[in-house]
């Protein structure tokens, strides 16, 4: 965990006071709604279909148990008893009243949690791998660099009114769990031949109505230059990004229009002027931030304790263990994913009671720490392997042990037309119905890894372009229709899905998904070939023939 110091706490208190004053000026009429809107957005406050929505940042997906408990409190006191974890490592409360907002923010601020820059045309919450600091795969803890960027980007005077929002993601492992190739800037931390730590820098990725995979503009940037290089990128974008059309204002359009090479040249030219200036990170600065991250005091434990061996006799535990437990870098410890996708429930939702349970379990078994991943699941990154059976028993009792991580029912979905003012179609009920069709765990295990992503409109908050199966809700003559894409992925081999065929109606979607899965089971070369690999090998045509023949 990163521990806020007196500076962070002072800033947060000032920000809460600033927003309280802005709300008062809005209520008195001194601020028009037009003037207030960007200010509230930069504090995470949206006006949705039915109510104000408060989006809270979970910087790089890391939460303490006290912070999660405070979110449960906000859900209980100011909302309707639940919260929704998003694909950007944030949590949203959908039913908060404007007059309660400053107090809810003050309550959250007491534990160092806030909604700053979770919306608006500024640098948003920097996201990373939910297994940071725990996975044996990483070159360094990416949260150190996410925290440095969080501080740098917080209320940046030059970059608070950008052409459009700006999202940065970092991966420090070759296996990309942070979807860095579909962000405005993706940073891939690795070591060069000399063992030096640096970033590959990608720009111009993104989803929405004009999706692009990011382009690499620099293969290796020594870590000490990360802030000056980001500043150079931001400065080029802030001056030359389009402001004439909101749909063409993201950096991906600028990069596309002038070309990645010309963009890179502009960035390098700007960077040459500032690379050795005040933003250059010294070892002292990096060490100072690093020292504020507290790591668990790991004990020397057996890698395969007797408790685990005994528990594996229970087939239900064994199923969960194989699905939801992952290798930790310290022997005797494990990474545990907590599925927020129980069959038939809205993806990513957690009740206040469930949040309290997870917070208590984190205290008992996981060094008080919880993570949120972009797949809308939670994670306990540091659990002693010997404690897994007891942890599982308690998760199971709270309906938090559905062993469907990475299965077809582990669906990413945006809030859709049930909540969102922008949506054209529902997303949550589509996810619920698909997960019911594949509720049989033996069946879904037989299908293997398959990511279904659902967006209720072209803005793509449900990341449909990068779902192995992507589902996009559109509106046709006042009816909800859905376009299906196959073959998208958000990992280190990121690519955009290919349209399968004509859009289908709401009622037809679950059956169509079943047909696609049946086609895959028939087409795959062996049970070892994943869905995404079959699509990659054969293209969408054989799927199209089979699926549309039956409809």
């Amino acid at each position, binding site marked *: 965990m990163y521990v806020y*110091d007196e*500076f962070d706490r*002072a*800033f947060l208190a*000032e*920000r809460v*006071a*600033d927003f309280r*004053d*802005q709300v008062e000026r809005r209520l008195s009429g*001194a601020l028009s709604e037009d*003037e207030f809107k*960007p*200010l509230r957005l930069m504090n995470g406050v949206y006006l949705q279909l039915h109510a104000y929505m408060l989006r809270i940042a979970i910087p790089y997906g890391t939460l303490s148990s006290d912070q999660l408990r405070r979110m449960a409190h906000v859900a209980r006191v100011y909302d309707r008893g639940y919260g929704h974890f998003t694909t950007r490592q944030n949590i949203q409360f959908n039913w908060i009243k404007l007059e309660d907002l400053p107090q809810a923010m003050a309550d959250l601020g007491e534990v160092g949690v806030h909604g700053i820059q979770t919306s608006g*045309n500024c640098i948003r919450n920097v996201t990373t791998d939910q297994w940071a600091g725990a996975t044996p795969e990483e070159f360094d803890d990416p949260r150190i660099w996410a925290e440095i960027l969080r*501080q*740098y*980007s*917080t*209320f*940046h*005077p*030059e*970059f*608070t*009114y*950008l052409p459009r929002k700006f999202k940065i993601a970092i991966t420090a492992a070759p296996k990309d769990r942070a979807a860095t190739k579909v962000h405005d800037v993706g940073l891939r931390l690795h070591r060069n031949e000399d063992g030096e730590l640096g970033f590959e820098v990608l720009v111009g990725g993104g989803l929405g109505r004009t999706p692009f995979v990011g382009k690499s503009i620099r293969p290796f940037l020594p870590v000490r230059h990360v802030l000056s290089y980001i500043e150079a990128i931001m*400065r080029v974008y*802030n*001056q030359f990004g389009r*402001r004439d059309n909101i749909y063409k204002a993201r950096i991906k359009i600028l990069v596309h229009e002038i070309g990645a090479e010309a963009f890179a040249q502009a960035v390098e030219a700007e960077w040459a*002027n*500032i690379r050795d*200036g*005040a*933003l250059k990170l010294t070892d*002292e*600065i990096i060490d*100072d931030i690093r020292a504020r991250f507290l790591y668990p005091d790991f004990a020397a434990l057996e890698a395969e304790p007797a408790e685990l061996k005994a528990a594996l006799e229970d087939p239900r535990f064994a199923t969960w263990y194989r699905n939801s437990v992952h290798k930790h870098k310290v022997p005797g410890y494990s990474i545990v994913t907590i599925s927020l996708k129980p069959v038939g429930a809205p993806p990513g939702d957690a009740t206040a009671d469930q949040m309290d349970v997870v917070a208590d379990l984190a205290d008992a078994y996981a060094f008080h720490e919880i993570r949120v991943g972009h797949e809308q699941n939670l994670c306990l990154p540091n659990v002693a392997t010997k404690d897994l059976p007891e942890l599982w028993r308690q998760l199971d009792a709270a309906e938090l042990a559905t062993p469907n991580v990475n299965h077809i029912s582990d669906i990413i979905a945006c809030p859709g037309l049930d909540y969102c003012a922008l949506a054209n179609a529902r997303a949550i009920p589509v996810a619920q119905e698909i997960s019911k069709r594949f509720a049989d765990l033996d069946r879904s295990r037989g299908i293997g890894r398959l990511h279904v992503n659902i967006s209720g409109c072209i803005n793509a908050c449900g990341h449909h372009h990068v779902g192995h199966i992507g589902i996009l809700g559109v509106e046709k003559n006042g009816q909800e229709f859905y376009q299906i894409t196959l073959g998208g992925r958000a990992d280190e081999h990121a690519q955009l899905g290919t349209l399968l065929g004509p859009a289908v109606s709401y009622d037809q979607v679950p059956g169509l998904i079943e047909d696609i899965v049946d086609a895959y089971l028939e087409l795959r070369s062996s049970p070892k070939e994943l869905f995404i690999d079959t699509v990659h090998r054969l293209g969408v045509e054989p799927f199209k023939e089979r699926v549309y023949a039956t409809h």
Partner: protein
Amino acid sequence: MPLIENGKLVEDRFIRVADEDETLPASTPVLLSLDRFLKEEEALKSANVEVGLIWPNNKPIAEIAPYLPRLALVALNFPTFRDGRAYSQARLLRERLGWKGPLRAVGNVLRDQFLIMARSGFDQIVPVKPADAQAFDAAMHSYTVFYQPTGDGRKSLLRARLGRSATRADDNGSSDRGAAA
């Protein structure tokens, strides 16, 4: 409209001359658009009046460099408060081009942006709303903690954190003058 310079309400010596106004007033400082400035370049040289220039948002600020020696004021525009191009122009003007003279924020200038304008290098502000002018002092002091260095000389957290440790006390007093540092 009121003019605030370095926190104080002051008289505006400059007359803003629109492009369509026929003649330039004699012996009074004038604030001109780039088009007008270029059109009157020769006349202005001989008239010996102080000239202020409103640099457009859509031209790279580096191109102002040849004119700077003849200017008494530079103004940058905010067509709406949501358009942040002038923040980058301001920082480049101060930190890259070394402009030490007055730098004025004009256009849709509102209270909630005063502080970031100052941090970007503006020392003159023309607020749209009279009430905002009254609240200038409060707006400028709404924050005491700044995470990132700019050219405004305020100490940023990047250095302040280090200032806590006695061994690095020498960093404590130095400013974070941006690109030029």
